[in-house]
């Protein structure tokens, strides 16, 4: 087939049923990140979610297991299947010393001397359980509620439900990568890509790769360049894929990227913060 014919074939407009049903199911325009009111008035104004995949074990920090202490060095009172190293059935307790701390008397290990002093300001959820025993599946369970890949992360759901008040920054920012499951720890999966977490680095000079304007490009040129990218994308969408949600999301993401170029650098600059914040 001649290249020109192939090119025409590639541009045949089509209607993807999943796009139609997807838009209907989620019930929103995909670029809809406008702030939305939750069903109940929230008491909290801000939430920071730290997902520290690969961090120290809770058993060594603030989740003392009395049964492990009881059977320390002895065979387990039940058969350990699957992940028993060298088929060992021996139990090992945390090697760290735990102390009762604060008015709550919460037992915290000596690994966290500062945490021992502020423990009364912390709420612990001890009711969470999982039947997943491996790292990746456990991480998926934690961030998506399911022990396998392909479902939206909690941040994507929050962005979808609440939107954002700042049009110049992503609704959902992820610092770093998510341990062994990587970017899937902040993926929007089958939610529209506009709810995907945007990776940022804790580096004020380059919080996002290539966010800074190249030295040999003027501000005016960059403005025109971004405008042309947007115009080309809109032309492609109009001509070829008017119903494609992914494409609409990408266009929205590019336009957001253009607005981010200034805002992201400001956000990542800690110079104006107080000493107390810097100490954190």
């Amino acid at each position, binding site marked *: 087939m001649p*290249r020109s014919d192939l090119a025409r074939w590639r541009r045949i407009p089509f209607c993807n049923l999943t796009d139609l049903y997807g838009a209907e199911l989620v019930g929103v325009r995909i670029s809809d990140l406008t702030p939305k009111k939750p069903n109940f008035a929230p008491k909290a104004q801000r939430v920071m979610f730290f997902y520290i995949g690969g961090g120290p074990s809770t058993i060594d920090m603030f989740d003392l297991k009395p049964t492990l202490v009881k059977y320390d060095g002895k065979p387990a009172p039940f058969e350990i299947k699957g992940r028993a190293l060298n088929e060992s059935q021996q139990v090992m307790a945390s090697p760290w010393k735990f102390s009762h701390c604060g008015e709550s008397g919460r037992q915290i290990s000596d690994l966290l001397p500062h945490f021992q002093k502020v423990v009364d300001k912390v709420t612990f959820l001890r009711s969470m359980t999982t039947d997943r025993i491996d790292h990746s599946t456990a991480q998926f369970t934690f961030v998506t509620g399911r022990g396998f890949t392909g479902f939206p992360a909690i941040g994507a759901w929050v962005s979808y439900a609440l939107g954002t008040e700042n049009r110049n920054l992503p609704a959902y920012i992820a610092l770093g990568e998510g341990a062994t499951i990587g970017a899937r720890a902040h993926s929007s999966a089958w939610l529209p890509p506009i709810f995907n977490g945007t990776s940022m680095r804790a580096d004020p000079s380059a919080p996002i790769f290539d*966010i800074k304007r190249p030295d040999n490009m003027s501000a005016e040129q960059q403005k025109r360049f971004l405008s*042309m*990218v947007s115009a080309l*994308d809109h*032309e*492609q969408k109009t*001509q070829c894929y008017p119903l494609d949600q992914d494409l609409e999301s*990408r266009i929205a993401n590019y336009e957001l990227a253009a607005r981010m170029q200034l805002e992201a650098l400001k956000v990542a600059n800690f110079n104006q913060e107080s000493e107390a914040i810097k100490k954190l």
Partner: protein
Amino acid sequence: MNSDPIMRTTKAFTAKMLEETNNDREKAVTLAFDQIYNRQPTEKERQIAQNSMSMEANPQEGLRLFVQAMFGANNFLYSY
């Protein structure tokens, strides 16, 4: 879209397009679409390219900027 490799690539690519069309900028735009997107440009896309070239003191730089936009646009980044 802002990295050094894309800046170098677009400069070299633009020079190649102009060389292969004997510095005919309109034909260079058509050739760029053929090489990058494997199709002909629409009328609107030609107009965007023309505007870019007319906005720069050096039209070749305007063409380079347009080529950079082509590489940054969805049409190049994702195959359908």
